[in-house]
């Protein structure tokens, strides 16, 4: 840093002396465009530095209040990422969600509908536990939810998926079951 400053000062002094005719610096004609090119290159480097490096200290934000966690928000994030098209590990995430929801559904049906766990599992598989075809399709293998054309287009075009729609319906249906028995 220091030697660069010294070099700059010497260059400027020599330049001024040469302009005043005190000294004669014999430089090749090529030197002038070379200085121009170097200047442009350093300018480009400075632009790059100012774009990339951001080492500004992090200032405190006293107005920002601590954000509390809301029960269930974690599951929403999980469902969002598991529903994305073509995500690596998406299938196993979806399986994990399906298993977790099936356990909850069995608990709800045994507790609020008086089923045995086996009977609850059968009803879930057959899709007879609810009138909502989308909710039924979430647990039932052979249950056809008859997705509308609009939904098919939406699922194909956005990150929304049939899995997510059915999971939402199944959970809403379980919530209704529980609300009835509360």
């Amino acid at each position, binding site marked *: 840093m220091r030697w660069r400053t010294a070099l700059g000062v010497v260059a400027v002094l020599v330049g001024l002396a040469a302009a005043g005719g005190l000294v004669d610096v014999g430089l090749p004609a090529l030197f002038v465009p070379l200085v*121009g090119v170097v200047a442009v290159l350093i300018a*480009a480097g400075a632009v790059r530095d100012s774009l990339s*490096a951001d080492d500004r200290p992090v200032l405190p934000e006293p107005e920002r209040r601590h954000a509390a966690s809301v029960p269930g928000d974690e599951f929403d994030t999980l469902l969002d990422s598991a529903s994305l098209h073509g995500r690596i590990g998406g299938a196993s995430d979806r399986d994990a969600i399906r298993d977790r929801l099936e356990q909850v559904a069995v608990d709800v049906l045994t507790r609020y509908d008086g089923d045995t766990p086996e009977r609850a599992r059968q009803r879930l598989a057959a899709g007879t536990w609810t009138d909502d075809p989308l909710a039924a399709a979430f647990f039932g293998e052979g249950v056809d939810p008859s997705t509308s054309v609009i939904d098919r287009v939406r699922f194909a075009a956005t990150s929304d998926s049939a899995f997510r729609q059915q999971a939402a319906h199944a959970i809403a249906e379980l919530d209704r079951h529980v609300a009835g028995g509360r």
Partner: protein
Amino acid sequence: MSLPLTHRNEGRQGMVAAGLALAGVGVLTGRPGLLLASTVPVVLAAHARAATFPSPDLAVERAVSTTTPDREEAVEVTVTVTNEGASTAPDLRFIDGVPTALTVADGTPRHATALRPGESTSFSYAVTAERGHHTFDPLYVVAHDTSGGAARHSEVAVETELECVPPIPPAATLPLRPSAAGITGETVTPEGGAGVAFHTIREYRRGDPLNRIDWHRAARTGDLSTVEYQRERSATVVVVLDAREEGYVASDEHDRTVLERSVEAAGAVYEGRRLVGDRVGVATLSPADCWLAPGTGSGHRARVRSLLATHEALHPLPSDDPFFGVISLSRLRRRLPSDAQVVFCSPLVDDYAARTARRLDAASHPVTVVSPDPTVGTTTGQRLARVERSLRCSTLREAGIPVVDWGDETFQSTVANAVRRWSA
């Protein structure tokens, strides 16, 4: 990031770039005008480059309108900064260290000014008081030099504390569980004595209170006899608060956490049991240890009030320290008096909470769960959380553990309704 630190404003890189680009193009195309124009940004950048880091000598005072505010009271905070150095501070920016659990209600805790030697400036803002003991962080100061190119970030510590201790809420008469000795709380003992329920009639002995002499019998037979009532014994109750991270959930991320409702419930249950003569203690399941042994009397009540308001384990924001469930639970069990009942205040948003209630119950400490409900049904995940919490409540009820599910009503009327349902 450790303070103080110095920082150069890299925004000046753009000026360097512009200057050099103008000069370069001017040289290459042979236009002296461009070269001349380039001197302006180059000189400015050189000025910024040559800047030295200022080191202002500041004295800071912070005054608050009250150090013991009520809950939700607006507390006016006034910060006064004086330049005690010999040189002018051309550009000072302040950010006050508002305690993390408090919100700025009015004004702003930021200020920017220039100060000549000996000159002062002050700025003020208001915060809304919350339950707890709050310590202000140091004032954060960013001092720039005249060019704005060099800055020194530092902190000036000023000790300011606020303590908000809400009163113990009105009593909620939560009944206790029947125990081997009968109904506790208004607990009966096999011996006769003073009380309400009839026990036996025995021969009068000198010194028996007049109001316990059976005057009908005396009129009939001429002999004095004394009525014995079932003597009541106080129960021992420990209110346990769930202050793990899961005890700090909220219905909305900007709402107060459900711990505030747990604390309110704990206070109301304490007051209710205290009024019927029980010995009541307080404990938490939390990263920080908190235990107040069961006791009675006004001194104990004051300790409960202060503990519920300001104990570190019940800070309005969750702690970052890890929580060791097994260790905490076994420590709690060691401390619980053998005949103690437990009132467990928990939102029941995870299985650990429900498991803890069942473990304590199985360890012959009859448990009653008081559960403020933090669940809302807005999103799919929140609906699932509500279903799972309902399942936990019914599993506990099936295991014989009463659960007071506290929704939107006041806690006192929720308890009254629950008691009516249980006795129906």
